[in-house]
């Protein structure tokens, strides 16, 4: 049976984040080339790739720390006139590579600075309590300076600090870097928990197996270009991805 009505694909949900034609350079060296990707609301998306592929640069571009050409749209609006602080206020919050806690400040001060752009005192106090429930170790150590924490505890603190900003899009840059296997399990456990809570996440990882296993979808970045994308499980089975990032 034929019909005059052309075939209409199911309507795509409006993406929460869409990148179009993104280029970025350090001096004259371009590290991201005409890059495009989208993240739908509620999705957990992984970006995997080798060292130096441009993964962290991409997250810095999304957060507004690194200048870039092209278009970034968030929640339907353009971010071209939005600085880093404004993006945090809109809900784009990053857990940076290497934790980057404020090492001379107390654990609690670090968490409270995560809510710097917010003014709703009551809700902030509730969120602080939530982080203490999620990361009990932080409650035990809340008066200690962040610099005295172990690497794993600092990672928890960095994640707690980001969650204090009530992220609508949580960017995680190499959350497993330099951590012991048991702690890595814990970190990805939290990512799963946040996914179940419906928080949209963009996870950048060298640890491709873990990241793709958690993610709904994944992108593979090679020297500044997206070379493969698809469902996390499909990428895990993809032979070239396996060869390059999963040790064959």
């Amino acid at each position, binding site marked *: 049976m034929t019909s005059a009505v052309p075939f209409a694909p199911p309507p795509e949900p409006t993406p929460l984040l869409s990148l179009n034609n993104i280029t970025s350079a350090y001096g004259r060296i371009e590290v991201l080339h005409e890059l495009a990707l989208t993240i739908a609301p509620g999705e957990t998306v992984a970006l995997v790739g080798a060292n130096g592929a441009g993964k962290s640069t991409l997250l810095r571009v999304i*957060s*507004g*720390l690194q200048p870039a050409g092209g278009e970034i749209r968030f929640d339907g609006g353009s971010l071209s006139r939005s*600085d*880093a*602080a404004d993006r*945090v*206020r809109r809900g784009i*919050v*990053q857990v*940076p590579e290497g934790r*980057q*806690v*404020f*090492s*001379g*400040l107390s654990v609690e*001060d670090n968490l*409270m*600075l*995560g809510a*710097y*752009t917010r003014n709703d005192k009551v809700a902030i106090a509730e969120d602080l309590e939530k982080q203490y429930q999620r990361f009990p170790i932080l409650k035990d150590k809340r008066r200690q300076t962040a610099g005295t924490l172990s690497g794993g505890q600092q990672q928890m603190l960095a994640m707690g*600090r980001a969650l204090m*900003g009530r992220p609508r899009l949580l960017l995680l840059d190499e959350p497993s870097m330099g951590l012991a296997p048991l702690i890595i399990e814990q970190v990805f456990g939290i990512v799963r928990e946040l996914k179940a809570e419906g928080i949209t996440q963009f996870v950048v990882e060298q640890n491709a197996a873990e990241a793709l296993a958690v993610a709904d979808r994944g992108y593979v970045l090679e020297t500044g270009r997206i070379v493969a994308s698809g469902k996390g499980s499909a990428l895990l089975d993809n032979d070239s991805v396996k060869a390059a990032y999963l040790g064959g």
Partner: protein
Amino acid sequence: MFSEFFQFTFSGITLGAIYALVALGFTLIYNASHVINFAQGEFLMIGGMGTVVLVGAGLPLPAAMVGALVLATVAGILLHRLAIAPARDADVVTLIIITIGASIFLRGLAQFFWGKEYHALPRFSATESLSIGGATLLTQSLWILGIAVVLVVALAVFFSRSKLGKAILATSMNKDAARLAGIKTQVILGVAFGISALLGAAAGLIVTPITFTAYDVGIMLGLKGFVAAAIGGLGSSTGAVVGGLLLGLSEAYTAGYISSDYKDAVPFVIILAILFFLPNGLFGSRAAERV
């Protein structure tokens, strides 16, 4: 004998309180931006000279003092906005040279508009001095100490309690992470310059009744404050206060027991000794910078 010692100690602490305030100004800007602000001395000059000029224009002393403090704070914020912020991508040495240029510029403005004469301000209290145990204490010294203590305590409370204070600390510890928390780090730097200018101006103002002021007093006071900050290990606020007091006391003892001719040489002898034997200062971090 003892009264002499007491006398020298007291004037040393008075001088030291001034140096400590200047050193705190250096420390604040250094922590927030790694810039050594060589225009810091000019804020002292604006505090003293500004008050003199406003009193000359007919304002009562308290109003003139507030006016001079506001003027210096605005100058500090403008220094950041017009000279430091536009060069934000330049390296630290360039920024330091910019502050040297700014200090010459501010001194030139003061010389042009306010003249080259030396001026004095009336003491804050009617009674000039008290005699305690054979030593003469200037009431102005008590004012200096009192105001310095209030400012240091206020600063400590500001940094440990207020959101803005913590944002300044966070910015000084990790600028990128601060930006990722939504802190506008350029605004924060401007605030740091403003507070630093306010501290400097307050120091320049309270010391004027006992030392006189002129368009160029900032050079020596600024340098000595920098030495105090370096003794304490640039970047430590406790160090700034201790460094200021140590410097003030050494100056006063040298002037009293040796000769006042050598008074101004003391800071430079001390800074050489510190650089040779304790390059990180007394309270500076011993650890090498992590890469």
